């Protein structure tokens, strides 16, 4: 890439600054960011929340709210985009530079067909007639590999899956053959197998059409998968940039190193298998047994249905599932959205009632528990929930939240609960001065620590963790996971760890059960399942997980790419 005089970059961002708010109290979201994107290149911008990566991207397209002040230069194809008028900018957007967003469901108009979404930019920029635009849209949908494009063109967004919607959004974005695509976390809301296919599509578009891409992601694995170069951002500043392989193999900045070391796959390498009480897990008796469990959700019939006596329609969320959790082990449940993994957790904690089968705890059926025995079960089996903010009552302070279970279960009086709350906060590494804060005044990671402390307040034997790190930044995730690992060892907890992320499960669990569409697909020791998956789906799941190592492998392919000649126009 360094031979001959370097060609002028397609996009060059120089010393970009973005401030929000009045001058004296301005929040500096982006401070002096510079990077360039060459023709035919995929550049990744990686950073955690608050790093300014999305703001940078929006500044390029002039899509920031009016109170933002933008400084610096953004040259695209020789023009400074920041100097363009709004009318001129509109001719750039969608025509020369377009953008796709994180959540395809909320970025597609629910009242518009997929075809119109794709056709709209063609009609706006090229003045296509309705029939011609429709034909072009069908062709675009075929190009992004949507099956039966002739039928799908008339579908509304709700009729498509998340992955299909993202494909449709990509089709709409590249309809006018733009030269640059800004992709802001395009796969974050998608399942990992779908993510792999979308990334593959982006890469193909890049190769076949010479489409330059800026891929924004919090996930270094995703970036490593397809990007030629990486820009690492933190707190509005570029801390490091360079070829992907170099950045990942020999990061020079401490933050980049932290980011790489926080990847779950790296964590398991660091920690090794030292702490695994594997022998205990295989020999001890089952503590919690799930036997032929089914959960159905009935859709509401309404008054008319009730009068007509129509059949209740129901969805099987969990279908005849059986497994044991043994004392002291860490049991992983892995699956994509809709696999029923959270439903199982909720059935175990008796938040929902199963439609069939049974769950036994120490030999006693969980569903027959009442009164005091139910309370005792609640104390023994505790759960930590997914979203850091939603799992805490917004009106209660940290101290009230953690002390409440002890007081309600009469395990302590007020002063005793207060003392134990302080001890619990220390245990989950929360600074004591946060005791009086409410959830809104805490960070996501701190909220999750409060949730863990609250669950531990009842000294449970089993802790169920339902995707507790999926909403957190990767460096925070690493902290929470190591906290959980430590608690497991010191408190002798049996854990049920639910996740969509195989790497996290590999690091944390002894045994794993893989779920798909409410059914148990495969179960076994983590190493066994991940190294020698027997089921096809497990194999696909493992293959789909983005890996840092991909950067090394994809280097060859990236070099072969002929950037200029791949550019072709099929219409327009």
């Amino acid at each position, binding site marked *: 890439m360094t031979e001959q005089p370097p060609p002028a970059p397609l996009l060059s961002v120089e010393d970009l600054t973005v401030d929000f708010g009045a001058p004296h109290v301005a929040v500096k979201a982006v401070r002096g960011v510079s990077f360039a994107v060459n023709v035919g290149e995929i550049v990744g911008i990686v950073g955690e929340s608050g790093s300014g990566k999305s703001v940078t991207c929006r500044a390029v397209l002039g899509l920031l709210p009016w109170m933002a002040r933008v400084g610096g230069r953004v040259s695209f194809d020789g023009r400074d985009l920041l100097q363009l008028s709004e009318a001129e900018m509109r001719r750039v957007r969608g025509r020369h530079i377009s953008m796709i967003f994180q959540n395809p469901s909320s970025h597609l108009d629910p009242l518009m067909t997929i075809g119109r979404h794709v056709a709209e930019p063609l009609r706006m920029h090229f003045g296509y007639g309705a029939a011609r635009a429709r034909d072009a849209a069908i062709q675009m949908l075929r190009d992004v590999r949507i099956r039966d494009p002739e039928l799908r063109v008339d579908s509304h967004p709700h009729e498509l899956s998340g992955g299909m919607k993202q494909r449709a959004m990509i089709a709409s974005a590249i309809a006018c053959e733009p030269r640059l695509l800004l992709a802001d976390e395009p796969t974050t809301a998608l399942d990992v197998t779908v993510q792999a296919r979308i990334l593959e599509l982006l890469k193909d578009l890049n190769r076949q059409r010479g489409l330059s891409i800026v891929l924004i992601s919090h996930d270094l694995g995703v970036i490593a998968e397809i990007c030629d170069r990486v820009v690492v951002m933190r707190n509005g500043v570029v801390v490091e940039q360079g070829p992907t392989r170099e950045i990942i193999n020999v990061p020079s900045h401490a933050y980049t190193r932290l980011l790489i070391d926080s990847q779950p796959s790296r964590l398991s390498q660091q920690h090794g298998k030292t702490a695994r009480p594997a022998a205990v897990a295989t020999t001890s008796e089952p503590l919690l047994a799930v036997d032929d469990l089914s959960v159905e959700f009935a859709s509401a019939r309404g008054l008319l249905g009730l009068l007509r006596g129509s059949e209740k329609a129901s969805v099987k969320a969990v279908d005849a599932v059986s497994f044991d959790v043994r004392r002291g082990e860490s049991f992983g449940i892995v699956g994509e959205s809709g696999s029923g993994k959270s439903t199982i957790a909720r059935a175990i904690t008796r938040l929902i009632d199963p439609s069939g089968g049974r769950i036994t705890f120490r030999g006693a059926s969980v569903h027959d528990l009442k009164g005091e025995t139910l309370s005792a079960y609640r104390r023994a089996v505790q759960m930590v929930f997914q979203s850091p903010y939603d799992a805490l009552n917004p009106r209660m302070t940290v101290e009230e939240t953690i002390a409440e279970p002890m007081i309600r279960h009469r395990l302590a009086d007020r002063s005793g609960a207060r003392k134990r709350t302080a001890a619990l906060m220390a245990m989950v590494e929360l600074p004591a001065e946060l005791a009086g804060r409410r959830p809104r*005044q805490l960070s996501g990671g701190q909220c999750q620590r409060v949730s863990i402390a609250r669950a531990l307040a009842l000294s449970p034997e089993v802790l169920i963790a339902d995707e507790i790190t999926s909403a957190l930044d990767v460096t925070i995730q690493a902290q929470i996971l190591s906290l959980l690992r430590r608690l497991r060892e010191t408190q002798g907890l049996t854990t049920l760890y639910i996740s969509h992320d195989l790497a996290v499960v590999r690091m944390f669990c002894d045994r794993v059960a893989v779920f798909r569409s409410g059914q148990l697909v495969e179960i076994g020791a983590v190493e066994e399942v991940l190294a020698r998956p027997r089921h096809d789906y497990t194999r696909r799941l493992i293959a789909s997980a983005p890996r840092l190592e991909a950067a090394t492998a994809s280097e060859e392919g990236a070099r072969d790419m002929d950037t200029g000649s791949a550019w072709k126009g099929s219409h327009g």
Partner: protein
Amino acid sequence: MSDEPAAFASMSRKVPFEIALGAAILAAWVILAIGAPVFAGADPNAIDLLAILQPPSLNHPFGTDHLGRDVFARVVFGARIDVWMGVAGVLPPLVIGVTVGLFSGYFGGLLDTVMMRLVDITVAFPFFILVIAIVGMLGPGLGNYFIALALVAWVSYARLIRAEVVVLKNAEYIQAARALGYHPLYIVLRHVLPNAISPIVVYAMSDAVLVILAGASLGFLGLGAQPPTAEWGVMIADGQPYVIDAWWICFFPGLAAVTLGLGFLLVSDGLAHALKVTS
């Protein structure tokens, strides 16, 4: 998800101007109502046939009515009834509605179906017509007005809070509270209610305006407070025949009703903004 606290949540500590102004107006009316004998300076029901239909003067700041009664004194004493109306006309339906909506939303099932059909039936009739019909049946008077309100107005509160609760009960912290083994009653009162109540508070304030104006209208129709009670609606009704020559008889009670309503509305509006940030 950032690992820095959401800084904007706790930024606006000071009381917004709207609430402060609204509260000041309400406080002024409450003080006037309580201290009516002191502030009025005259007996509101003292008839002085030698001084009828006098325009505002130093002696009678708001003038006198067709029986020579001091309008200012009557407005001040009227505040006792109208301010009380804003409280007594709002609180019973609020308590009934919130209780019904809270439990029916949280527990669902048959209770919910029955209660919500009852709500539907009540809502099917125009609010005013229903209130007037009930007062007509029970007989005129403020007490019966409050009973009619309690019977009719609770449905709005029930619907409003039920909608909140139905969403809220799936929140993870409510699930967490269940998983922690708290009693359902405790969960409803300690975790659901405080987080569902803010739209109710806001609505109650604007409902107070409605209740006061409706009460005044009822007074005007002769169904509310009975003469010679000094009540703003009754006063406006009484002054109606003289409105061309003696505008002050209707104007000042009307102005009083407007300012009291404005006070409630300002507080309601301000609360709507303030509560949105924290909840």
